[in-house]
């Protein structure tokens, strides 16, 4: 499949590669510069393997001074830059530029400081998300945002995408848990955004930078907030005879003033898809299953769980099970966390969508998606971050059947359009990248897209940082592109993701 860019866009920048290579050779050791095709092949895609582009050069700096030297050289020689963390992203944010350099920051993987007293950690961008919590664990602390790829994804990538996780209703997204980033600009200057003190002076550049998909600067240090690990977590698993009633259960929990640590919903097809795969003990008769987690002190959790159980019964739950051990809690979660790999087992291909909707429209949206199944002649299963409205429809199809790819694409496009129509958004947590760049045209007006370009220019006046991503040009606004996974042809298929 063609990389989602038109020839006009691809040749807008004319880089001077020989000059660039000569320049960085002074500051960056030869073993950090990859130019042979067999070396650079590894970097041709991120977690969205449908988009591939072999980069002419990959540089893997070992320290901040080298990052500065590389970016200065890019600036001087007009070379586009594609930053890359662990490469687990799902929207093509790290897809190489055909005439650019990929800068992999995985070697900046040291935890520079971890202060259990003030509850902060300062880490390199290549440090894995889970490694922060592991390092903090002996002090009874952890880093809250837990994207499902957390064993592999890096904190630098989390900053680029504003990653979430199943606990973000209560504990927030990356944007709520990062205190400071140290950034190298395209001009090779260091700027620090935010700080360990609250409310840094000036405009809120830190939170603007988070989720900017590598288009505003390269991160060389991230300061994160650590929080005390709750003593206990338990999860209630509830079966419902309809999706609407499960949604009603969620509404009652929130209306009662409870913010659960996690709140996840699966429809019947998703349950039937994952149960044979993980054996989590899900109720195969249910039309929907809701998982609701409570955490805190044992007394606090008991009090909350008792209320949750009562509220879910009132909403019409037909079966309730509450985890009585950590092992059982993890088992209940296992099915939800493995929804994507499970889809890969029952269907040759699937598209994962990532829209967010106001939750009150859930019943209507799922009914509409069911209608679309008939319209497009394809199956779709739905997993849903019920607390925050983030819906992941998985469209199942077979790319070897004539026109199924087209139908799946049209199906996906219709879902995203629907999300925008009911007041939602085209992406809740996976990012725009290359994948959803066309749908940006549905969600935003030209003037709004121009405002994004204005932010971009304020940080990167030359347009060299991760060009062609996130902001569609006028020309692009008629095209479409979606995530497409063929035969489990996804990078790191063993990593749970959503």
């Amino acid at each position, binding site marked *: 499949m063609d990389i989602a860019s038109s020839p006009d866009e691809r040749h807008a920048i004319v880089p001077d590669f020989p000059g660039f290579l000569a320049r960085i050779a002074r500051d960056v050791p030869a073993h950090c510069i990859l130019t042979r095709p067999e070396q650079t092949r590894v970097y041709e895609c991120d977690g969205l393997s449908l988009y591939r582009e072999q980069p002419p050069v990959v540089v893997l700096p070992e320290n901040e001074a080298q990052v500065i030297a590389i970016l200065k050289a890019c600036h001087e020689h007009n070379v586009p830059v594609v930053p890359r963390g662990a490469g687990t992203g799902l929207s093509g944010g790290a897809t190489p530029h055909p005439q650019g350099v990929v800068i992999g920051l995985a070697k900046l993987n040291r935890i520079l400081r971890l202060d259990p007293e003030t509850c902060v950690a300062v880490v390199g961008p290549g440090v894995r998300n889970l490694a922060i919590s592991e390092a903090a664990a002996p002090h009874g602390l952890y880093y809250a945002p837990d994207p499902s790829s957390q064993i592999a994804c890096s904190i630098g990538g989390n900053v680029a995408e504003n990653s979430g996780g199943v606990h973000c209703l209560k504990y927030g997204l990356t944007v709520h848990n990062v205190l400071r980033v140290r950034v190298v600009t395209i001009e090779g200057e260091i700027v620090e955004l935010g700080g360990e003190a609250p409310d840094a002076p000036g405009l809120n550049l830190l939170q603007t930078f988070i989720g900017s998909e590598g288009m505003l600067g390269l991160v060389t240090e991230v300061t994160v907030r650590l929080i005390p690990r709750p003593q206990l977590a338990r999860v209630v698993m509830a079966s419902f005879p309809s999706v609407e009633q499960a949604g009603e259960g969620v509404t009652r929990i929130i209306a009662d003033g409870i913010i659960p640590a996690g709140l996840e919903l699966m429809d019947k097809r998703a349950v039937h898809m994952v149960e044979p795969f993980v054996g989590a003990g899900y109720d195969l008769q249910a039309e929907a299953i809701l998982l609701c987690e409570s955490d805190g002190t044992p007394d606090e959790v008991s009090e909350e769980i008792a209320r949750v159980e009562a509220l879910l019964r009132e909403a019409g739950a037909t079966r309730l099970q509450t985890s009585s051990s950590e092992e059982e809690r993890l088992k209940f979660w296992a099915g939800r966390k493995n929804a994507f790999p499970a889809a890969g087992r029952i269907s040759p291909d699937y598209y994962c969508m990532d829209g967010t909707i106001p939750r009150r429209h859930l019943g209507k949206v799922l009914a509409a998606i069911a209608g679309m199944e008939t319209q497009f002649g394809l199956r779709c299963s739905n997993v849903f971050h019920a607390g925050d409205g983030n819906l992941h429809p998985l469209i199942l199809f077979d790319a070897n059947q004539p026109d199924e790819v087209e139908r799946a694409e049209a199906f996906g496009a219709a879902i995203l359009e629907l999300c925008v129509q009911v007041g939602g958004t085209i992406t809740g947590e996976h990012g725009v990248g290359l994948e959803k760049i066309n749908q940006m045209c549905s969600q935003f007006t030209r*003037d709004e897209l121009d405002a994004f370009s204005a932010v971009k220019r304020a940080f990167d006046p030359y347009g060299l940082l991760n060009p062609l991503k996130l902001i569609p040009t006028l020309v692009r606004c008629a095209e479409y592109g979606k995530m497409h996974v063929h035969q489990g042809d996804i990078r790191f298929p063993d990593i749970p993701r959503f």
Partner: protein
Amino acid sequence: MEFVLSELCEQVVTARAAQRQLLIRGGGTRLFYGGPLPPEGAASWLDLSAYHGVVSYEPSELVLTARAGTPLAEIETLLASQGQMLAFEPPRFGTAGTLGGCVASGLAGPRRMAAGSLADFVLGTRLLSADGNVLRFGGEVMKNVAGYDVSRLLAGSLGVLGALVEVSLKVVPRPRREATCVLALDESSALDQCLRWRSRPLPVSATAWVADASGAGGKLSVRLSGNESAVRQGLEEIGGEHLDDEAADAFWLGMRDQTHAFFRQQPLWRIVLPAGAPALGLAPVLHEWGGCLRWLAGPHDAAALRDRVQSLGGSACLYRRDGAPADVPAFHPLADGVLQIHRRLKQEFDPAGIFNAHRLYPEL
């Protein structure tokens, strides 16, 4: 209401054509905050107070959207009727204060360290731009990574990039139980104590340390919020003297709205520091946010104070400036690279410089 908005757009277009500066105003209660106002007649008011009203409120979605001119008090009354609240506990300076002013100033109250900053709860905005267009960023959903987070850029921007005309906020349930206890501690002991609680799973939702009359000792008030069990256990661990609910509410309101006697002093500095920063040895001082926010009253040397605070990783804002030299900028100076990005953002969003000139930094 759309007529009111189109009038406002018209006013911006006219001002831009005439190269005339605009000062954005809601209830006019926060004009003291920020850089100096231009002399009378040098700028026109862009008055958002007529553009008011709650647009939508879905308690079960935890989202409220309201026009910028909506009084903050009206919003909080509405939320309270559904057992909800604004988590960042914004200060109110009288009844006229509006949502727009609240968000543009970015100020949060006692709950800030436990709940998050004001910007943390901003989900979406509509911005009246320098072109006289209304642009929508973010939305009414909690997870949204489509485009840059311009809404959060606007939170606390003091109107230098344009006028907020509508804001969507994440709201939260009111805690089932709140309780306040008071411990007699001197400044350093209070700071040490707050730091120790930080790494404990305690439901501390606010702290305030106030010096006693002699200045040698003081009282640390601690508010706990959560469900019955969490608050009860927290009280057991923290100890101290229990304050009755009525007195506690009055005390925290005095902190939130800065009506406590301490805040009558001028000039008044608002200093933010990382957790664990030591006592500065300057007085009179009042601490909140576990010691991360320090209010310092009196005529301190601005440059020396700012150097000191910066060396500790913080910043100092001249919050109420009566009695301070006129040439002291309100906000802590920015590093060159960061200021450069500020300049470019201003240039991009408001090239003619019509919105709230000098309110954030003299360069903008």
